[in-house]
């Protein structure tokens, strides 16, 4: 089972990860982080398939993806 | 090794190799293309790298790149080319990397001419690049001295982690004289692991060779650090030669490089005839021998100075700075690539002497 961890204070709120996620796991927060941005957060973590596309798209290396159990590889990266 | 008759450009190239320089980046320009030609033959023989760049701009930035790895590296050019290199020169001073640059000065401004000149004095001593920038500037008057300057320029550059420039005018580079390479001791390059970009090799913090300091306080600190280095240069590296400056000397001619050779012969001749004249020859143009000239100017016997240059008067500003209003400073110069003849200089010096009251 995959787990998306977002370092909310690194996030600049660009929303690229939200658009990149094929499972609509992520949404923007309603509150601000220390930088003053609305940050991205996994609101439907159970939908995550561990494709890492959100992390690939993130310009700020704010996203870490972990997997418990079987890891599926969807494409070469 | 015995003395060897060589052309200036080749002697300068060979001196660099003797000094342990194995990398040369350059771009052809008259009157110093023979340095590049010589090194294009010699570098491969000693396992070194000769690379002809696409422009002086690129050559000087290659110099910067190689210098950033702590490698002994040299480039050479002539006045218009040196102007193009000024960009990288400034970055090199800012990033504190050592390198050696030879400028075979030719007449300017613009394309000017291709004959010997000393009209890059301001540029070499005061404006090798934007920002608070100084190079140590050596001005050889003979081929033997050119060889010595090239060979000592590398350790000097490494000592201060700052470029060193040798301003040899077009004549020095083009003429032939006998040279002896064994006079100067060669040194091993210093350890550069604490600053150079050589790959971290997993055993230390990474190194950063840069000149950008966005924080004004950081930049001010950096400027002050560079200033301290210039102060140290001014303290330790001033070199000059005095010829026939004696207790009775009334007129002191100040000249460097090729011009100083003409003036020297005139001064010796005039002395033989009983005229109280002497020659002061700055060997380092930066740092300039202000203190020594000032001392000389305080002598009662000394009535005046005379700057003799192949320009319309550039070093004269430094002579005036040294002498200030203690004694008058006259000038004689030829321009356009014309080397003053002994007759020219003799006439000018006698005139000056007369102005000072015989």
């Amino acid at each position, binding site marked *: 089972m995959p787990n998306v961890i977002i370092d909310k204070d690194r996030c600049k709120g660009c929303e690229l990860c939200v658009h990149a996620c094929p499972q609509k796991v992520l949404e923007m927060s309603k509150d601000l982080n220390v930088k003053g941005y609305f940050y991205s957060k996994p609101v439907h973590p159970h939908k995550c398939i561990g494709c890492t596309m959100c992390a690939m798209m993130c*310009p700020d290396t704010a996203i870490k993806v972990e997997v418990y159990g079987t890891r599926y590889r969807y494409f070469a990266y | 090794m015995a003395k060897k008759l060589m052309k200036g450009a080749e002697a300068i190239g060979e001196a660099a190799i003797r000094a342990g320089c194995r990398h040369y980046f350059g771009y052809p320009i008259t009157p110093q293309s023979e340095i590049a030609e010589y090194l294009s033959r010699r570098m491969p023989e000693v396992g070194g790298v000769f690379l002809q760049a696409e422009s002086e701009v690129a050559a000087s930035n290659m110099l910067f790149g190689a210098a950033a790895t702590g490698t002994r590296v040299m480039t050479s050019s002539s006045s218009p080319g040196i102007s193009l290199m000024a*960009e990288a020169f400034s970055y090199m001073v800012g990033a504190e990397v050592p390198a050696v640059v030879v400028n075979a000065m030719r007449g300017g401004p613009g394309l000017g001419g291709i004959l010997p000149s000393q009209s890059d004095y301001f540029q070499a001593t005061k404006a090798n690049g934007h920002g608070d920038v100084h190079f140590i500037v050596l001005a050889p008057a003979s081929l033997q001295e050119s060889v010595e300057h090239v060979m000592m320029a590398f350790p000097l550059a490494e000592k201060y982690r700052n470029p060193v420039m040798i301003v040899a005018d077009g004549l020095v580079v083009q003429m032939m004289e006998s040279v002896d390479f064994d006079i100067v001791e060669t040194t091993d390059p210093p350890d550069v692991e604490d600053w150079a970009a050589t790959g971290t090799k997993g055993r230390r913090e990474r190194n950063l060779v840069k000149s950008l300091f966005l924080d004004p306080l950081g930049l001010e600190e950096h400027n002050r650090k560079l200033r301290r280095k210039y102060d140290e240069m001014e303290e330790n590296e001033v070199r000059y030669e005095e010829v026939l400056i004696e207790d009775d000397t009334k007129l002191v001619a100040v000249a460097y490089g090729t011009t100083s050779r003409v003036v020297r012969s005139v001064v010796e001749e005039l002395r033989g005839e009983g005229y109280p004249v002497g020659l002061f020859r700055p060997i380092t143009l930066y740092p300039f021998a202000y203190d020594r000239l000032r001392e000389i100017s305080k002598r009662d016997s000394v009535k005046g100075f005379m700057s003799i240059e192949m320009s319309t008067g550039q070093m004269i500003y430094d002579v005036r700075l040294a002498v200030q209003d203690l004694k008058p400073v006259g000038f004689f110069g030829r321009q356009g690539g014309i080397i003053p003849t002994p007759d020219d200089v003799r006439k000018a010096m006698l005139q000056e002497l007369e102005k000072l009251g015989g």
Partner: protein
Amino acid sequence: MVTIFTRPDSMFDTPTHYCPGCTHGVAHRLVAEVIDELGIKDKTVGVAPVGCAVLIYNYMNTDFVEGSHGRAPASATGIKRSRPDLVVYTYQGDGDLASIGAAEIVHAANRGEKITVVFINNAIYGMTGGQMAPTTLPGQKTTTSPKGRDVNHIGYPIRMAELLATLKTPGYIVRSSLHDPYHIAMAKKAIKQAFIYQLEGKAFSMVELLSTCPTNWGMTPYQATQWLKENMLQYYPLGVFKTPEDE
């Protein structure tokens, strides 16, 4: 538990100064991931450009030299020629590489310098505030082309990858894009191959990366990726333009 995606070792954890959604961050990470995967962190020297990415050395944990504007390929030449054992790459924007440094990139490629060039093409000058670049698209509005780039006045945008691919000297010239995860994966593959060619001592390599500049384009980061897809891909086709194996 396995971590399948995290910040590469070759990057410091310093947050970048880039605007939200700027793909510089992605390009930095791709280079760092490749350096990690090839195990070359200890012998890599980067050359920083002038432009937004001048501060790349604050984020990459390798030795770095900061070049002057456009001259990074010349400085990289000096580094590589004096220390052929090092892996040398430049990271340059379009103003740096395609405008002021056009001579240096062409000749470094033509000499076949064994260096890798990462070329960020975002069709605009970022650092100085959104002026027209040599890569600005026809009709694209910038602060110095307020009515849109007029090709009769200033010519057409330069396609650097195509231009360099015409050189006879062997090289590896690729154009990729950073506008979506699929293309980012392709870009990483290209960057890795570029470094491999350098490690093998085979050829000069350049990877052009189509990138976004949401701030100066006046768009949201996501709109910018879509604008890139709809406009830049037409003018700047992706692909491998040349490999050292080509005749």
